[in-house]
């Protein structure tokens, strides 16, 4: 692969691509190109057509109209296999790896080197895997079981898998949604290595700051149409957001609530311990406050939330809600005490996927609609309709299932659930994960409204701009302890990051009294 000093060659060019599904025109005359040795970011809200575009590039969908030119010649993929053989590899969010097999076996799945008897040549496979991992520049034992690796290492295995063939185009679909900041840095380094080797990379992410860190060009899609393609160096964040949602950045976060320091907190946590993840956490949350809980993935933030809510047992420590001890919490008791918990894992721990919107919204407060155990279904539906209207949830009606809703609308269902059920404290664990920018704006406004109504809100987030934009006070955790607290004007991304990566805290600052 020779990178010419002149204009780099165009690796893939789509011309006037349209694709319709029953009832939806997913792509409408989209043109798009990406060059060799370029990282090209693809941006757009959920439903903008990114996935459809990727699947057309990968040969999983056949476009209704338009042409695909790949590496200089016009192609019409008959199957994903054909696109793959031509040198296109897609790394999806859900990794397609076999957890019980070794790294080497995964890398060579389907084309393992054979010895002359036709058996798998294990030593050749190990050597090959080592060589490929070397090319990615990643230290990994090729004998290790993939299931025992971190998600970040598993992504490297996926990339290594792509490199077993002559790869020309690599598509990464939101790889950083599942890994922490430091792991993302590593991934970006590997991407840069591939770029230098002349590979064309198409990168999808919801995180704008990543686009500015790594991408050369960015293409924005909206409602199935191509909005713009720009050099990243020539635009700023605000322009990007405006292109995506037609709103400017200053509209995203509502004004922060004032700092609260009234003496009686709604929630007090003291000396919380839950080995091995949480070794000492104390803090107070006040009515009407939006308190951030920051830290890298694995710092123990979610565990703290689960301990307060009672879904994971704690070893020791005291929890007080409005002056009343809440020391043997169960989810039911916590809800009855006025606590709501919107979990990080929407699909596994949040939504009741097989039930309808009304049942999902009413779940924690179902007794409100029951007399002697008999459900008043029409009252439940009526209430759900009100919530659906109030939160602008795009769902056909209260008796529609929630499975097919977009991430943003699913999250709004959960917001409706917890705002109905809780009246004192709301814990939000990654409230905007996998949600598009438009829905994010609405969710931020909901959080703000709840705080204004006097509810104490604890926000756990890996997205620093989110914490900085929302919270008037942020406590930071690292490896199970609170390393510090920032409030007011001092809430900045650098201040939080410094505390989150701080090595040995000299003294643990006590929470404000």
């Amino acid at each position, binding site marked *: 692969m020779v990178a010419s000093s002149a204009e780099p060659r165009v690796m893939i060019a789509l011309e006037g691509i349209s694709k319709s599904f029953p009832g939806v025109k997913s792509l409408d005359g989209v043109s798009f190109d990406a060059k060799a040795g370029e990282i090209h970011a693809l941006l757009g809200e*959920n*439903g903008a057509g990114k996935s459809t575009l990727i699947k057309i590039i990968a040969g999983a969908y056949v476009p209704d109209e338009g042409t695909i030119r790949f590496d200089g010649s016009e192609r019409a993929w008959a199957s994903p296999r054909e696109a793959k053989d031509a040198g296109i590899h897609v790394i999806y969010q859900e990794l397609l790896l076999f957890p019980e097999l070794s790294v080497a076996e995964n890398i060579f799945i389907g084309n393992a080197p054979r010895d002359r008897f036709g058996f798998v040549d294990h030593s050749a496979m190990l050597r090959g895997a080592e060589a490929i991992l070397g090319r990615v520049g990643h230290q990994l034992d090729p004998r290790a079981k993939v299931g025992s690796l971190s998600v970040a290492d598993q992504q490297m295995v996926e990339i290594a898998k792509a490199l077993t063939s002559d790869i020309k185009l690599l598509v990464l679909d939101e790889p950083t949604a599942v890994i922490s900041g430091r792991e993302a840095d590593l991934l970006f380094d590997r991407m840069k290595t591939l770029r230098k080797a002349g590979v064309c990379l198409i990168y999808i992410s919801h995180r704008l700051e990543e686009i500015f860190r790594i991408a050369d060009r960015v293409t924005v899609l909206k409602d199935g149409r191509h909005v713009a393609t720009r050099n990243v160096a020539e635009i700023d964040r605000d322009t990007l957001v405006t292109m995506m949602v037609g709103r400017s950045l200053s509209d995203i976060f509502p004004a922060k609530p004032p700092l609260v320091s009234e003496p009686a907190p709604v929630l007090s946590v003291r000396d919380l311990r839950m080995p091995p993840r949480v070794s000492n956490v104390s803090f107070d949350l006040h009515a009407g406050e939006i308190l951030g809980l920051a830290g890298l993935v694995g710092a123990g933030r979610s565990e703290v939330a689960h301990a307060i*809510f009672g*879904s994971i047992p704690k070893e020791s420590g005291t929890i007080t809600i409005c002056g009343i001890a809440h020391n043997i919490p169960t*989810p*039911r008791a*916590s*809800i*009855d005490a006025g606590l709501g*918990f919107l*979990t990080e894992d929407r699909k*596994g*721990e*949040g*939504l*009741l*996927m*097989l*039930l309808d919107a009304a*049942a999902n919204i009413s*779940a*924690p407060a*179902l*007794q409100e*609609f*029951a007399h002697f*155990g*008999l*459900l008043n*279904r029409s009252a439940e539906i009526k209430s759900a309709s009100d919530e659906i209207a109030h939160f*602008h949830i*795009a*769902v*056909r*009606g*209260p*008796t*529609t299932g929630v499975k097919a809703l*977009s991430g*943003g*609308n699913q999250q709004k269902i959960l917001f409706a*659930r917890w705002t109905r*059920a809780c009246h004192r404290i709301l814990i939000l664990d990654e409230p905007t994960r996998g949600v598009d920018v438009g829905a994010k704006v609405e969710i931020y406004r909901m959080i703000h409204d709840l705080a204004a109504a006097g509810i104490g809100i604890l926000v756990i987030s890996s997205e620093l701009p989110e914490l900085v934009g929302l919270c008037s006070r942020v406590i930071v955790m690292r490896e199970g302890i609170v390393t510090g607290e920032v409030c007011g004007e001092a809430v900045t991304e650098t201040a939080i990051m410094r505390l989150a990566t701080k090595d040995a805290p000299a003294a643990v600052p006590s929470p404000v009294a």
Partner: protein
Amino acid sequence: MPAIAGPARRFTVEPALIVVTLFLAALIAVGVAVSDRFATTRNLVTVLEQAAPLGFVAMGQTLVILAGGIDFSIGAIVAGSTVFLAGLVNGHDDLMLPALAGVLMLGTVVGLANGIVTSRTGVHPLIVTLGSAAVLNGLVLLYTLQPTGKVPVWFEDFAFGRALGLPISGLVMAASFVVVGLILWKTSLGRAIFAVGGHPEAARLSGIRTDRVTMFVYAASGFFSALAGAYFVSRMGIGDPRVGESLTLASITPVLVGGTMLGGGRGGVLGTLLGVLLISVLNNLLNYINVSTFIQWVVQGLIIIAAVSIFGSGSKRL
């Protein structure tokens, strides 16, 4: 995504219900064609009568499967109920009603124990209920190896009696279906059963007391098993330690044929009722053409595998 307009659909019919109804209709058509005695009132009443024990156990199994579990102790509870009921009464006619209440309670308690162990230990219900079945079977065989006991003649009415020209056992079965259906669709407990079966962790985190739900469904299954046991005592006049043997698997067939998802969270009692009728009509027809009981087992095994292959693509675990 733009807001979706349009009326909210109030009711959707599960495809499984349509399929099983069509099969049932086809079987009845075959029956009418094959034998002129099939469509007589007398025969149809017999079908209903004989459907009752299967109906009872399948109802319990429906609740358990909907809540994400499975109950393999049904056969043992049925057998235990027959011998304890007949053995306790053993000619003392005045003991009939107290013994009946006691046995129904015993079945409920055994089921409750299944539920407690399952929800407290997290051990797979397959193991828990097979284990409790072994314990119960052992106790029953210690008590008696032979069919035993004697109940008053009037108790035969449960199996053979008529009220308003309809079989009492069939009426009890229908009433039980209505009650279970009401629990499932009209109470918060029913909602919790669907929630726990579909997504135990999400249900727990939305404040549903999942352990109580689990205890309830196994206890209900134990109760219905004991009720089936009482039916057999009524029909045979004695208790038989081997009577429940084939009923455990048989209890699962109509549930799955009726479209309830193995693994929980989706399905219902209407499908089970149709499944019970389907299997009862099928057995009745096979009797007409003089097929041996063992062939009927073969047919049932094939039906259960077919049902799971057709409707079970959405099943989650187990």
